[in-house]
């Protein structure tokens, strides 16, 4: 791709990031750094010289590293199992793994307390387990997205040469999947580095991260100079790590023949394969399935200990519910926002992924890092930034319906890019060159060569974006409207009131959210071009 093409394709992501990220974040940082119109960097110096802060930064970093390693350890085998072996309900498992993304942290905290008792609470173990629970789907989606595109002949060839399943997996599949693994690791790291709810609710007050501190300084103390200093520090760490990471990722990308049809998914054969599949499923089931199943069970538990539908009935009964509006309205609003956000995220993310993989190298690397930054910046910084920057024409968006899907898309775009980049960069250039030699224009090459190959990955990315949008309530919390209350916010509102009825309804609504997410993801996976797998 030439520089002109790269510039044109860069427009949608750059415009999007400028309006919904750079401008708001810049505005709130400037408010902190120039409180009275002149630079006041005293807070910056003071914050960076604070000894207690070093402990916070250190803890933030190493818990994120540890969480990322653990998530990969669980996610990669599960991704392999789900893309290589067929079993009844495979697609449902694939969809359900994303459910944690949409649940409010307090609901997850309830699930964990019910599952594990309160013994682990406040420990590092609780934080790590919850981080794996939330993020394992990232690895499964990103790595799985590439694994299912690998040409099965590579593995068949290895098998013909006498390598067993294990050797093939370790020496053929794993090296080819490395770009996707690094890609997934980057996102998981950012997610856990800026973790807020998990650290606050499961880690307890003695485990502070930078994000928690930024949140407190901004929302509770309105100490914007300190918040700005902390945000800059967070941004610097994230940008530095990303710059290193994306360099590694590009060095790792291996061109490989990518299959137009997917790698072969087949029933597991033999004891080894069966037990590997069983172990992977048991791991995913124990981590994600059990807590979710207990929540579902709770939603049917009557006060007298029996099972029944009373909380579901209460949800739709205006007399019994404190929501003040039908719960199904919240379902509708959630779906509307998520669909809008998904469309935006896929358009922006696809354009960006093409530039990252096809554009001039430096430009590509810069864009790659910039696109991930929204994950590395505190949601509260973005949310408060909206309030003070998008209030004048031409950007008068405060209170606009569109602001919420845009805020959700901001978080979803990085996921779209992460899913697409490894797949796009694995397409063998020689196929393209061959097409070009035969006289195809670049646009036609894209249409005839790239698109069929990335179609399925776009489906995976869209599903991902959809779940991320449904579950985003970092920035949206600050710009929500009661009239368009979403399901996660409605759950939080129910849990903000005492009593078994409110608690039961919150569990029922959480169950509805889980089902709605799983079904939506199954539908999206059917919609994707060229694939009904």
């Amino acid at each position: 791709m030439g520089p002109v093409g790269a510039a044109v394709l860069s427009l949608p992501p750059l415009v999007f990031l400028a309006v919904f990220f750079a401008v708001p974040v810049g505005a709130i940082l400037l408010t902190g750094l120039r409180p009275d119109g002149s630079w006041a960097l005293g807070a910056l110096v003071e914050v960076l010289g604070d000894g207690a802060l070093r402990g916070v930064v250190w803890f933030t970093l190493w818990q994120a590293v540890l969480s990322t390693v653990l998530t990969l350890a669980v996610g990669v085998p599960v991704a392999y199992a789900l893309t290589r072996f067929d079993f009844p309900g495979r697609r449902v498992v694939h969809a359900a793994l994303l459910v944690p993304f949409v649940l409010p942290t307090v609901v997850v905290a309830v699930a964990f307390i019910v599952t594990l008792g309160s013994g682990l609470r406040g420990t590092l173990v609780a934080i790590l387990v919850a981080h794996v629970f939330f993020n394992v789907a990232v690895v499964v989606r990103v790595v799985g997205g590439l694994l299912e595109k690998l040409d099965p002949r590579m593995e068949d060839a290895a098998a013909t040469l006498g390598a067993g399943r294990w050797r093939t997996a370790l020496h053929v599949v794993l090296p080819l999947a490395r770009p996707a693994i690094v890609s997934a690791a980057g996102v998981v790291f950012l997610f856990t580095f800026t973790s807020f709810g998990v650290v606050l609710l499961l880690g307890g007050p003695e485990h502070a991260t930078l994000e928690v501190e930024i949140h407190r300084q901004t929302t509770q103390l309105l100490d914007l100079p300190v918040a700005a200093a902390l945000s800059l520090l967070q941004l610097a760490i994230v940008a530095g790590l990303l710059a290193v990471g994306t360099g590694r990722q590009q060095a790792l990308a291996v061109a490989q023949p990518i299959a137009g049809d997917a790698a072969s998914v087949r029933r597991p054969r033999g004891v080894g394969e069966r037990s590997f599949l069983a172990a992977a499923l048991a791991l995913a089931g124990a981590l994600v399935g059990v807590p979710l199943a207990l929540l579902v069970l709770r939603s049917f538990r009557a006060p007298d200990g029996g099972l029944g539908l009373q909380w579901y009935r209460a949800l739709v009964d205006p007399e019994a519910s404190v929501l003040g509006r039908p719960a199904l309205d919240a379902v509708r609003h959630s779906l509307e926002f998520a669909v809008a956000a998904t469309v935006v995220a896929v358009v922006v993310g696809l354009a960006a992924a093409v530039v990252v993989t096809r554009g001039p190298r430096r430009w590509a690397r810069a864009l790659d890092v910039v696109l991930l930054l929204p994950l590395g910046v505190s949601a509260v910084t973005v949310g408060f930034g909206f309030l003070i920057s998008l209030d004048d024409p031409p950007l008068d968006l405060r209170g606009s319906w569109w602001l919420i899907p845009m805020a959700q898309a901001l978080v979803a775009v990085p996921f779209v890019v992460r899913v697409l980049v490894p797949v796009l960069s694995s397409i063998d250039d020689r196929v393209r060159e061959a097409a070009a030699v035969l006289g195809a224009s670049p646009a036609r090459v894209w249409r005839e060569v790239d698109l069929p190959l990335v179609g399925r990955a776009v489906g995976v990315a869209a599903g991902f974006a959809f779940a991320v949008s449904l579950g985003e309530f970092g920035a949206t919390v600050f710009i929500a409207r009661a009239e368009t209350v979403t399901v996660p916010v409605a759950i939080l509102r129910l849990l903000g009131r005492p009593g078994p009825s409110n608690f039961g309804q919150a569990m029922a609504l959480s169950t509805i959210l889980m089902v709605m997410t799983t079904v939506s993801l199954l539908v999206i996976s059917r919609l994707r071009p060229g694939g009904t797998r």
Partner: protein
Amino acid sequence: MSTRAPFRRRRAAVAAAALAATLVAASCGGDDSADEGPADGAAPDGPSGEVVVVAHDSFDLDDDMRAAFEEETGLTVTVQQGGDAVSVVNQAILTAGDPLGDVLFGLDDATLSRALDADLFVPHEAERLDEVDPALVLDDEHRVTPIDHGAVCVNYDAEWFASEGLEPPADLAALADPAYADMLVVQNPASSSPGLAFLTASVAEFGEDGWLDYWQGLEDNGVDVAADWSDAYYTRFSGGAGEGDRPLVVSYGSSPPAEVLGLDPLPEEAPTGVVESTCVRQIEFAGVLAGAENPEGAALLIDFLLSDRFQESIPLTYFVHPVIEGTELPEVFERFAVDPDDPYQLEPEVVADNRDRWIDEWTDAVLR
């Protein structure tokens, strides 16, 4: 890979991006679908059009309420939510003069003074102000109007205490007694409004010289600190709907009614009880925001929040007490809620002046 883009082209791309950004934003501006109410920025003058209420995420008006208000005034209501109560007040301070709406709902004793100091409000003397309990009217200039009030109190798991044959603690001091070791859950005052209210209760009881020692005693007695109310009540407290294992929690005087709501017949006793002597008063206020696009509509809405219709809905919607004297309470509230006679109450100025320092000192004493 191709070569780098020439510099000039890149500049052009940036300029184009800026232009496109403007176009995108402009086209998004008034794109609301019909049922989302009118696009913002289109509020006409005078009491017509819409009133935008800025509130924490627990506040909403249901469809019947909205219909009633619209019938009375011809105005539609939009509720703009901004996170928890403190966060909403801070957003209002941040956007002072260019407010996010017309009315701010949800200031409490702890945030009132900061909001008044920031000149967020214009005075409005509500129609029924003379029917409001005078003890709740804290601003003589009527920049803010009390709408509801509650009490933050220690709740206990009545069933657990009965089965253990143990008396619930009698007062704040008893909570530090080894007989009640490892039983209490409080909220972090840095991130929770009942948590801060409970901290102020301890200051009111033990004074500036004694409250930290008291907390040291609670700490030695195994107090558990939760991030917020939901976390404390549902995942740590053992009583009622709680899933946890601690029988004492900081909650509200009006929490017990919620535990028996909908049971038919109502039981003799609620599964949770209130330690009345630990209660601290919390009042919620609303005010007309300075710089509001629709100040007349804002004033009408505040009057509406004091109407019988809204006041009577408060107990079972928000689980707090109405402020208009003589408002009829639902039976379950009448029987099981505690409205303490003599709650702790600190002056809002005292809370505002000392809040951050208290939280810092508390954090050092209890968490480190």
